């Protein structure tokens, strides 16, 4: 039976049998339509990309205040559009490996302190100029300038000198960092002519699409760049368009009505309804993003390790995952790393244990209630999650007092200021980045006030270690430390939930970010 189906699906891919006939034959063989459809699309993928047409995405996360300056990109729409017109030094591929783009080769000194990027020949900018080592160096300089407002500044500060000579760019770091190539895959680091120093928002780079329209907060469009250096791999549609649709209902309606081919951020509560719409495919996949409750380890009463442990044991992670995320996520274990990171190791899952929580709570000597601040902007469903936490903690004899804060000013007045609140982290591409951003004693965003010189030393040591097995062991120890002693309560990792309409093909799940790490429009195609 399966042989026959496969044969038929190949005939469809070859254009010798219509889709409708195929589905009819599949049904006759007793195959359900979704399965037959997926069989078809894999056959079509094997047949290769189809060129032409216009791919449209309806995305949340765009505002009329958006700018084309890569340094200022923050939300989802500039991120996705940046991947259309921009070209990076390296890209993180779906399997977590690095794929060289503008760099042909990346090498380091044995101590991981001096890095050499060899720039590929013959890549052209949209304005006809060839990409040179100077352009790459200037880009990195712009993003590592202390005065820069770049979203990548945090990692780029670690670079001491940047030198371009001939076809090479040589980076010298202040401290060794084995992860440097991963940092260079940051989406802000779009290579621009002269690094964008002259006109940062000119929108010129070497990506698969040239900017055709740019109306921030409304729509962004690109047309295929004829001289793109890798036209067989990306840039299949003639035109791409991103329409900013911040309203979730309007977004799903646009997909159902066929006005767009893909959308991002489908709400977990409506996924099951959307699944039933013919032609629509839900693309959900795990990522590094996580929903958290953060306690300041240096502020009473959270400076007491027993109280922190009591609260960690008093949260019912499974219930929260099922009710807030409707299962579209995975259990958290109180450290910010999951299997989407390259050097992840399993640690025993912490479970809801009211008795143990009660024991630690008593031991902490704290009595009275504990104040938890939450808001809808902390993460979708944060208010519900806080209430679930309140109920599960009550069973352990702990009274949580919930304060609902206004969304306005939550990030400036509550997060990273108040000792116990709900929050969200998008995750990073490596463990080093994640720990450096939020768990080093000196980190600006050390939002759990985790101040442990021994931990800092471990982060720096792991950063300089090139032996993967040793590094893995080091990260394992760090994770255990954060999990057992830190101020982080991490009940769940959320999934990215995108959806595509009929005829969209070439989708590959990518654990790093939504929409195939932003490349969906560039890498997908419309079936003929």
């Amino acid at each position, binding site marked *: 039976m399966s042989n026959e189906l496969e044969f038929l699906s190949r005939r469809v891919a070859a254009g010798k049998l219509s889709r409708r006939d195929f589905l009819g034959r599949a049904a006759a063989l007793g195959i359900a339509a979704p399965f037959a459809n997926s069989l078809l699309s894999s056959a079509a993928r094997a047949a290769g990309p189809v060129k032409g047409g216009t791919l449209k995405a*309806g995305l949340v996360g765009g*505002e*009329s*205040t*958006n*700018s084309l300056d890569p340094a200022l990109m*923050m939300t989802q729409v500039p991120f996705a559009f940046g991947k259309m017109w921009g070209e990076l030094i390296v890209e993180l591929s779906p399997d977590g490996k690095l794929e060289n783009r503008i760099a042909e080769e990346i090498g380091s000194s044995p101590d991981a302190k001096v890095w050499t990027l060899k720039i590929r020949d013959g890549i052209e900018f949209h304005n006809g100029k060839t990409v040179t080592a100077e352009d790459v160096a200037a880009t990195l300089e712009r993003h590592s300038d*202390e*005065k820069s*407002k770049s*979203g990548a*500044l945090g990692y780029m500060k670690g670079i001491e000198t940047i030198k371009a000579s001939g076809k090479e760019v040589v980076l010298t770091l202040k401290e060794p960092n084995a992860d440097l190539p991963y940092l260079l895959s940051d989406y802000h680091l779009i290579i621009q002519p002269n690094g964008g120093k002259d006109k940062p928002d000119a929108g010129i780079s070497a990506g698969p699409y040239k900017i055709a*329209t740019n*109306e*921030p*907060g*409304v*729509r962004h469009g690109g047309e295929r760049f004829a001289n793109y250096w890798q036209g067989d791999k990306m840039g299949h549609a003639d035109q791409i368009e991103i*329409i*900013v*649709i*911040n*309203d979730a*209902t*309007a977004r799903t*309606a*646009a997909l*159902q*009505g*066929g*006005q*767009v081919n893909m959308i991002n951020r489908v709400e977990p509560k409506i996924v099951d309804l959307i699944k039933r719409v013919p032609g629509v495919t839900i693309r959900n996949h795990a990522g590094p993003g996580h929903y958290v409750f953060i306690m300041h380890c240096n502020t009473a009463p959270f400076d007491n390790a027993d109280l922190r442990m009591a609260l960690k044991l008093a949260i019912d992670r499974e219930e929260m995952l099922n009710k807030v995320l409707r299962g579209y996520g995975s259990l958290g274990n109180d450290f910010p790393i999951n299997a989407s990171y390259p050097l992840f190791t399993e640690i025993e899952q912490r479970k809801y244990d009211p008795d143990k929580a009660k024991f630690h709570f008593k031991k902490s000597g704290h009595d009275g209630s504990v104040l938890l601040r939450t808001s809808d902007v902390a993460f979708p469903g944060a208010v519900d999650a806080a209430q679930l936490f309140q109920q599960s903690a009550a069973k352990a004899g702990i009274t949580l007092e919930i304060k609902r804060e206004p969304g*306005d*000013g939550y*990030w*400036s*007045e509550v*997060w990273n200021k108040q000792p116990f609140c709900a929050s969200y982290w998008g995750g990073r591409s490596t463990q080093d980045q994640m720990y450096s951003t939020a768990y080093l004693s000196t980190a*600006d*965003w050390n939002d759990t006030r985790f101040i442990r010189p021994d931990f800092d030393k471990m982060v720096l040591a792991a950063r300089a270690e090139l032996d993967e097995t040793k590094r893995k062991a080091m990260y394992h120890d760090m994770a255990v430390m954060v999990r057992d002693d830190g101020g982080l309560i991490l009940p769940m990792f959320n999934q990215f939930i995108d959806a595509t309409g009929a005829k969209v093909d070439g989708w590959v799940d990518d654990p790093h970010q939504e929409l195939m790490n932003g490349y969906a429009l560039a890498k997908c195609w419309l079936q003929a």
Partner: protein
Amino acid sequence: MSSPILKLIAQRIALGIVLLLAVSVLIFAGTQILPGDVAQAILGQSATPESLANLREQLGLNAPAYVRYFHWLGGVLTGDLGTAMSSGQDIATSIKGRLWNTLFLAFWAAIVAVPLAIILGLIAVRYRNGWVDKLISGLALASTSFPEFFIGYVLVYFFAVKWQIFPGISTVYDGMPFGERMQAIALPATALTLVVLAHMMRMTRAAILNVMQSAYVETAELKGLSAFNVIRKHAFPNAIAPIINVVMLNLAYLIVGVVVVEVIFVYPGMGQYLVDHVTKRDVPVVQAVGLIFAAVYITLNIIADIAAIVANPRLRHPK
């Protein structure tokens, strides 16, 4: 006769300008008391003390409020609305397109809604208390009672998702062919029409019914004129002032009150523009949009007043 009218009109306009100035002070004061500041809002979760200080310096947030007010007012009077803090774009340029979009949508909604409301009002009066009247009033009241987003979603569900007659998202852009543009605004214009229809219709009906109690209408009826002629020739002209008033009020709403409809249909008008910038604490933009909205309201009200004065001789001779 003309001079007292002109004087009254001049007075109205002068009053409007004073009012606008007062509003400008209020808007400026209002934007000063928002929590947080623009630098904080631009950087959001990624704010660090240094980057905050850098940005504040760069945006000139350190000058005292009254200095910034007069600087701003001077700019507005010379047609310079300043630049948006968050994106560095010229506000006048970015508002121009948005305002045009909003006016375009409001225009077509009004073209449908105003005559329809008045005609339905007239019909309701003609068949007052009969089933036609009740049907019209009932439907109009129902459409007003539903919140805008509900009407919007229902329209999207049927016309965009189910039957796929009109697009559910109304992104319009420069150089879009007129036919496509009209198709794109079909659903938001319908939603707006449904929202404002009832108010104008009911007001028309009430105003005419009020006049129908008058002695001269009775005379007209006794003269043997047909019911429609009585309404058309004798009642309607005398009820025109309150009708114009409510029409103007609704026109103003079509321009300044359509935030929800614009968001649902992803229509690039002033409402969306304002919402985006309010969340970013982009004060210059909020001020500029606020001032434009105030000007629209005041202008339409002046027009309503003047029309009422022209239509009703008694108002021309204040006691």
